[in-house]
């Protein structure tokens, strides 16, 4: 019904007609907007597995948070049923919600398990590519085991195709492994910021353990022991584990290489190192004492140094604990409790499956196009590497106007192909004292380490300013697949460098934007 995302009316990318028909049908019987996100598709079977073992790839290939490739195509949602927490983190201020798990912890409203179950059905009916339901707070799901597992129970009965996952600080984890198994939760994320209690004491002021508040090194020792024990128990039971770490420069940045080794040896399959969010206005201990977050290149350097040890996650958006939709978009405002309780929900599994089959077809086409382009790059053996920024709304295509982009996806191009290395948010430019006039400047700062920016469309003024800043605005690949286009651009770039037409210059560093993702129409 009320679809406030009016800018979708401008979307002009060609979506397969069949897909639109299916979306139309789905939209008809549940009064809720279906635009936004993506009428586009794709997702795919074997493609994109990289060096992941086949059985793990099978489990994660449609999980937007676990597979970089899947996050272009599939959506997730969080339900905020777990407000209580059992530890205190210096990057979190519970007076303003919790700042870890998804700027982390920011929610508009708490839900009961029954409300949460209805919300999941409503969203899954409106967004057929929604495949994953997560509980990530705003506190700790396992500090609220009753609410968390009741929610899983209700959802697994009503929508058995939806994958369940939860995100925890790990303190209570060993006590709940059996229950996690029972509800068929096959994905768990544990936030592990240290394995050294001396470093832990700088991050965690206290934990609530065995009915007492424990502080200092002792608290950190209990926490790390419980986290690692929980991780071992989960992986021994065949439950997939991702580890989240918050990179805090000067506190745990060097130590995270050790953490990476420790969690890998205990079976974690993916490591997500996230930048600290620490603005003074969040009122966190780190925010107030001036602890800074890392720059884009510092974060990338740490992620690069851990790569090879295990898969690194680089597409995390540190989303809200009630986020809904594709990563990088947030449709939670469409699904407030008031709206959901009025909705008549008709959960149609076959319509969802039909849509997802189309998504798979397009996803395979994307990979085929990428591979074909990659073949033509074979034989090029330059040491040259460049970063490019891409404006996209999902489905792996360059399909966003420069001026509408709230984030840019960053790819590293080399003679090995195009590798996704992160994203840069540019959504908060009007906040923090910047005016509209400075908007472009903040965008340029966010992608200042990039050689080019790929867009579906761009105006003359920003084009000129980008060129002045040394960033090449590229719109000739509008609505094409990202990776295929990027490789094609890189081939051309190499040729022009070789012929002397252009000189390759090393770009500088870039800013990581602070704060939560705030939807434009919220």
């Amino acid at each position, binding site marked *: 019904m009320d679809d406030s995302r009016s800018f979708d009316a401008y979307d002009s990318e060609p979506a397969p007609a069949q897909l639109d028909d299916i979306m139309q049908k789905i939209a008809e019987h549940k009064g809720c907007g279906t635009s936004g996100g993506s009428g586009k598709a794709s997702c795919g079977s074997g493609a994109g597995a990289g060096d992941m073992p086949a059985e793990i790839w099978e489990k994660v290939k449609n999980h937007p948070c676990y597979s970089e490739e899947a996050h272009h195509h599939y959506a997730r949602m969080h339900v905020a049923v777990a*407000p*209580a*927490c*059992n530890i*205190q983190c210096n990057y979190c201020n*519970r*007076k303003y919600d919790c700042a870890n798990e998804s700027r982390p912890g920011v929610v508009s409203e708490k839900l009961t398990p029954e409300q949460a179950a209805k919300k999941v059905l409503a969203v899954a009916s409106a967004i057929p590519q929604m495949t994953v339901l997560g509980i990530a707070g*705003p*506190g700790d799901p396992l*500090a*609220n085991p*009753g609410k968390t597992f009741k929610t899983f129970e209700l959802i697994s009965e009503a929508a058995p195709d939806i994958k369940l996952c939860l995100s925890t600080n790990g303190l209570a984890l060993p006590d709940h492994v059996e229950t996690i198994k029972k509800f068929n939760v096959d994905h768990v994320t544990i936030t592990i910021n240290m394995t050294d209690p001396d470093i832990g004491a700088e991050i965690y002021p206290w934990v*609530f353990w065995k*009915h*007492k*508040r424990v502080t200092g090194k002792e608290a950190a020792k209990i926490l790390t022991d419980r986290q690692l024990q929980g991780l071992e128990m989960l992986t021994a039971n065949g439950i997939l584990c991702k580890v989240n770490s918050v990179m805090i420069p000067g506190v745990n940045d060097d130590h995270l290489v050790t953490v990476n080794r420790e969690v890998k040896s205990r079976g974690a399959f993916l490591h997500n190192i996230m930048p600290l969010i620490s603005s003074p206005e969040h009122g966190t201990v780190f925010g107030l004492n001036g602890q800074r977050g890392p720059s884009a290149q510092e974060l990338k350097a740490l992620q690069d140094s851990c790569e090879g040890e295990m898969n690194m996650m680089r597409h995390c958006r540190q989303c809200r604990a009630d986020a809904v939709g594709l990563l990088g978009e947030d449709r939670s405002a469409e699904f407030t409790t008031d709206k959901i309780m009025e909705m008549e929900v008709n959960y149609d599994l076959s319509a969802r499956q039909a849509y997802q089959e189309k998504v798979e077809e397009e996803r395979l086409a994307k990979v085929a196009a990428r591979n074909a382009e990659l073949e033509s790059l074979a034989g090029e053996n330059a040491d040259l590497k460049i970063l490019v920024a891409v404006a996209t709304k999902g489905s792996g295509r360059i399909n966003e106007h420069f001026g509408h982009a709230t984030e840019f996806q960053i790819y590293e191009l080399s003679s090995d192909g195009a590798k996704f290395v992160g994203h840069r948010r540019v959504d908060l430019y009007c906040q923090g004292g910047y005016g509209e006039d400075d908007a472009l400047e903040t965008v340029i700062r966010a992608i200042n380490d990039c050689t080019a920016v790929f867009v579906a469309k761009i105006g003359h003024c920003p084009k000129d300013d980008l060129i002045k800043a040394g960033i090449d605005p590229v719109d000739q690949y509008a609505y094409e697949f990202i990776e295929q286009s990027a490789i094609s651009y890189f081939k051309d770039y190499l040729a022009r460098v070789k012929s002397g037409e252009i000189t390759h210059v090393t770009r500088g560093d870039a800013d990581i934007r602070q704060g939560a993702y705030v939807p434009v129409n919220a």
Partner: protein
Amino acid sequence: MTYKIVASQCTSCSACEAECPNVAISEKNGTFVINPKKCTECIGYFDVPQCVAVCPVDNTCIIDTSYPRYQPSA
């Protein structure tokens, strides 16, 4: 005596609710409150009052001296 929650400080995180051994804590008008008739200051259960120990905001669960000291029945 009994413990009380300072409403202006309460973040409504609900951490205390599950820890109270007397089920004395519930949500009311967006914040949590302690039923003084049920509160035993955790005497007989734990060394420290559980609401105080788990509350993330200092000085939010505090002693309410307007009630007499809790007397465990013999």
